[in-house]
């Protein structure tokens, strides 16, 4: 029970910080001072206190969608180990639950968007769902590779020790997987070059246009949910990189935190260095991610799967 | 008793020619049919074979065919009561008279124990059915009759030659070509002549049976004859022809020529099935459609006979099923023709809606003809396929199933449209009632086919076993 609470605590508290790190990095590259590191928290609280506006077209799905969605992401976090912290619930095949809970969250966001009857939101929803299909298969393939390497079916098993020997044996392969995961992260969390979280220009957008009509507490929850999702994907990547086992909790936490900061900075660098891609080229990012992981898979097979 | 069976329809036929009133002729027809039927079924209790003299006798296959003929004839006789309404007296007289003669000759076919007599009887059935086929005397019906006559006569001439060859083969050993004697003296026949004889007899009797490529008369005659006659042709005449093929098989079997015989019979059978598909698909005339289906079923029967073993059981069972099924099918087409006055399938629409009973029987006929379960044809087709697989005839089995599927496709396309599609002019055609005398025989035939599909009475089973025993070992 305790682990449950710690885990949820981390998931509830830390995610917006990552947004701050990214923001700071981007500001640095733009030569600005930028918003404070805790801007994410401020935004959420600001939105939470606002007065909501609802469309008369909408049903309860519009209002409950963000909640179900965020709750699902949070529930997905329950099976994911954070750093050395074992997931409170772990079982063979929990990775599938993880992906499907994310899918559940997306499903309700899409429905909430469609509930408004606005064609802009319909468009965003359509794009979001389309890209999600492609990123999902990459995630599955990556997870299958990791499972194959670590001989474990649960996320905790994979990340807490299962992979430790693999870096030595098939390190390059794991790098491919990390890159592939990183690309998926960019897509799933609507970061540049896939999507621009800052603008609301409808023709170019995917995720942001989907939440166009949400306001107040729901929007706050959505922002938090986004941050949480980014955090979870970050967890995947970071714990893949730091998959060796250290007994010392403090050291582990330090590694992990620095990893996260590194990830935030990496995302920030990418966002600063690249422009947003045209919509039809976004696909190529996803294809690339998928091909990286296929490549990794083949290498493992040829190597006699470690 | 056998003599009675032979003479009864002859006498009744003669009476029908002279009786002045239509009602009396009908009574004669029905009572003769009933008596004949009763007489035939009285044989079921007695041990077989029954023989009257050297020439006449009933063995198991003979009795089987005779029973089918008699029962189907009875049904058709009942059906005829409601079928004819206002045709001239003279044609009614001729029709009933020749109908009874036809029955008499078919009885003779089943009862003859001498090949010569068998052939005479078959020729007589051909000749006596000519006035029946040419009943309506339109151009088409005359054409059909002409073709029927010429082709069947040529066939029979060849069969006759086959019989003489058989006689040559027996020179020096067997006294004459009595079937029993031929069978009981195997191995003493001159093989080249016997082979010739089998080939000629097969072609001759195959012509009558409607095997491809000698089938060409069949669709014409069946489609142009009045429907009850088509039912008799398809249900009785073809079976009589099959009986003669069975006789040949008996002789061939006794002489150890069964593989030789099968190697011809099976290709002919499968060709018949294939041809039936070609002509059933997209067929415009629904009577021709059922006629081609007769070709198909005769092909199946031939395959079963050719396969031997359990195939013979299936073949005979299929013969019975097919007879009743075809009787059913053609009687239903009779109903349809009376209500729609057209043989074009395209003119017949919405049968289920307009004439629900006829519609249901049309569907039943279609399903039975296609060999769907609950109907006897399913079981017999299954047994024949079983025999094919038992003999490792995989290619045969493949084509068998392929053609069955294609034929089903063709039949379904036509019949279902007839039954279900709405008529273009809903109210234009008046709906005449469905008279009981035209429904009850159909119902009865349906029941027979269904019962044979779920239950084969032990006595029938015994008879079938006895028949297939004739070609076993």
């Amino acid at each position, binding site marked *: 029970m305790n682990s449950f609470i710690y885990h949820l605590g981390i998931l509830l508290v830390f995610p917006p910080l990552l947004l701050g790190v990214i923001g700071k990095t981007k500001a640095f590259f733009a030569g600005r001072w930028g918003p404070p590191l805790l801007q994410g928290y401020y935004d959420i609280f600001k939105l939470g206190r606002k007065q909501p506006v609802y469309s008369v077209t909408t049903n309860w799905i519009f209002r409950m969608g963000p909640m179900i969605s965020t709750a699902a992401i949070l529930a997905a976090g329950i099976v994911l180990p954070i750093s050395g912290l074992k997931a409170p619930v772990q079982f063979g095949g929990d990775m599938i639950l993880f992906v499907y809970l994310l899918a559940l969250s997306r499903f309700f966001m899409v429905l909430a968007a469609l509930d408004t009857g606005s064609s802009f939101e319909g468009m965003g929803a359509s794009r979001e769902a389309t890209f999600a299909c492609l990123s999902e298969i990459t995630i599955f393939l990556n997870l299958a590779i990791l499972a194959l390497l670590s001989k474990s079916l649960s996320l905790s098993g994979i990340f807490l020790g299962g992979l430790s020997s693999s870096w030595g044996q098939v390190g390059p392969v794991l790098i491919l997987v990390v890159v592939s995961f990183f690309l998926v992260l960019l897509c799933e969390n609507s970061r540049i070059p896939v999507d621009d979280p800052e603008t609301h220009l409808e023709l170019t957008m995917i995720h942001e246009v989907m939440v166009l009509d949400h306001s107040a507490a729901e929007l706050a929850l959505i922002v938090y949910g986004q941050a949480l999702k980014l955090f979870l994907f970050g967890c995947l990547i970071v714990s893949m990189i730091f998959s060796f086992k250290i007994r010392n909790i403090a050291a582990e936490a330090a590694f992990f935190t620095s990893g996260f900061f590194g990830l935030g900075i990496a995302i920030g660098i990418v966002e600063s260095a690249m422009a947003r891609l045209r919509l039809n080229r976004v696909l190529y990012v996803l294809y690339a991610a998928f091909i990286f992981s296929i490549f990794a898979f083949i290498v493992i097979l040829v190597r006699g799967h470690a | 008793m056998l003599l009675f069976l032979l003479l009864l329809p002859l006498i009744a036929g003669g009476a029908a020619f002279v009786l002045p009133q239509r009602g009396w002729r009908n009574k004669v027809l029905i009572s003769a049919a009933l008596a004949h039927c009763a007489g035939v079924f009285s044989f079921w209790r007695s041990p077989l074979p029954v023989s009257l003299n050297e020439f006449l006798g009933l063995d198991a296959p003979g009795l089987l065919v005779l029973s089918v003929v008699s029962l189907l004839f009875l049904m058709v006789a009942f059906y005829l009561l409601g079928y004819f309404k206002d045709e001239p007296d003279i044609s009614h007289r001729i029709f009933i008279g020749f109908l009874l003669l036809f029955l008499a000759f078919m009885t003779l076919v089943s009862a003859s124990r001498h090949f010569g007599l068998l052939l005479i009887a078959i020729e007589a059935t051909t*000749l006596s059915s000519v006035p029946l086929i*040419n009943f309506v005397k339109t151009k088409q019906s005359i054409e059909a009759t002409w073709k029927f006559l010429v082709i069947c006569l040529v066939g029979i001439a060849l069969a006759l030659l086959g019989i003489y060859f058989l006689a*040559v083969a027996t020179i020096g050993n067997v006294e004459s070509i009595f079937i029993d004697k031929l069978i009981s003296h195997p191995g003493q026949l001159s093989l080249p002549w016997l082979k010739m004889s089998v080939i000629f007899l097969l072609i001759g009797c195959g012509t009558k049976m409607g095997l491809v490529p000698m089938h060409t008369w069949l669709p014409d005659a069946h489609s142009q004859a009045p429907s009850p006659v088509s039912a008799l042709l398809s249900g009785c005449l073809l079976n009589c022809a099959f009986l003669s093929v069975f006789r040949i098989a008996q002789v061939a079997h006794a002489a150890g020529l069964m593989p030789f015989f099968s190697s011809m019979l099976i290709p002919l059978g499968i060709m018949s099935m294939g041809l039936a598909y070609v002509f059933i698909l997209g067929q415009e005339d629904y009577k021709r459609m059922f006629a081609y289906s007769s070709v198909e079923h005769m092909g199946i029967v031939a395959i079963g006979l050719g396969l031997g073993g359990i195939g013979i059981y299936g073949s005979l069972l299929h013969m019975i099923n097919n007879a009743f099924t075809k009787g059913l099918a053609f009687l239903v087409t009779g109903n349809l023709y009376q209500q729609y006055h057209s043989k074009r399938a395209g003119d017949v629409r919405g049968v289920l809606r307009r004439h629900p009973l006829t519609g249901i029987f049309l569907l039943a006929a279609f399903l039975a003809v296609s060999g769907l379960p609950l109907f006897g044809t399913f079981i017999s087709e299954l047994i024949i396929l079983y025999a094919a697989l038992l003999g490792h005839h995989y290619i045969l089995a493949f084509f068998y199933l392929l053609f069955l599927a294609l034929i089903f496709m063709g039949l379904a396309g036509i019949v279902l449209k007839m039954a279900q599609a709405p008529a273009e002019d809903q109210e234009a055609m008046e709906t005449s009632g469905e008279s009981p005398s035209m429904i009850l025989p159909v119902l009865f035939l349906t029941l027979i086919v269904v019962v044979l599909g779920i239950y084969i009475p032990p006595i029938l089973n015994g008879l079938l076993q006895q028949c297939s025993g004739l070609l076993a070992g």
Partner: protein
Amino acid sequence: MNVWLDAALVLIILLALFITVSNRLGTMIHLFGLQSCLLGCVPFFIYFKQMEFYIAFVAGAAIVLRGLAMPSFLYWAIRHVSSRSESNPTIGFGTTLLLSGAAIVGSFLLATRLVFPVRIASDMVVPCSFSLIIIGFLLLTGRVKAIAQVVGYLVLENGVFLFAMLLLKKMPLLVEMGILLDLFIAALVLGIVVNNINDEFDHTDTLELTTLKD
């Protein structure tokens, strides 16, 4: 006696060839009648030594029924037919003749392979009968007039009958007579149907009888 028999057989074949080349229906019927009469005489030649009453009876019946009754009946059938000649046969007269020649050769070849179990009067009977049968077939397929086809069929029958001559002793009289009668009635019915055709269509051209097809 073999000489007589052989002579009769050769004549029969010759008559058949004549039938194939004659284009007048009347001539065909005449020739057929002649051929049947000759055929009726054949038993006398074959069973010259062991003549019995019933053989004579069968032969006589054959002459009467096939040689006399049938031709006159056929005449009756075409009494109203306007065009009495086979104008455009499907297989030309020359071709038919050539094919018939081939058929005769083939029949003799076939007959050498089929050894008759007992010694018979002449080894020409079997090939002749085969030749007649094939010529009959040729007429059936090559002629378009209904009556010409009937004649073709009858020639075919004659072939069968010729073969039957060898086996007169083998078959019971009843069967033999039955067959004879049956064939006669068949010819009768054919004639009636030809008559019907003539009534209904005003001609006896079977090429017009092709409405029933798929």
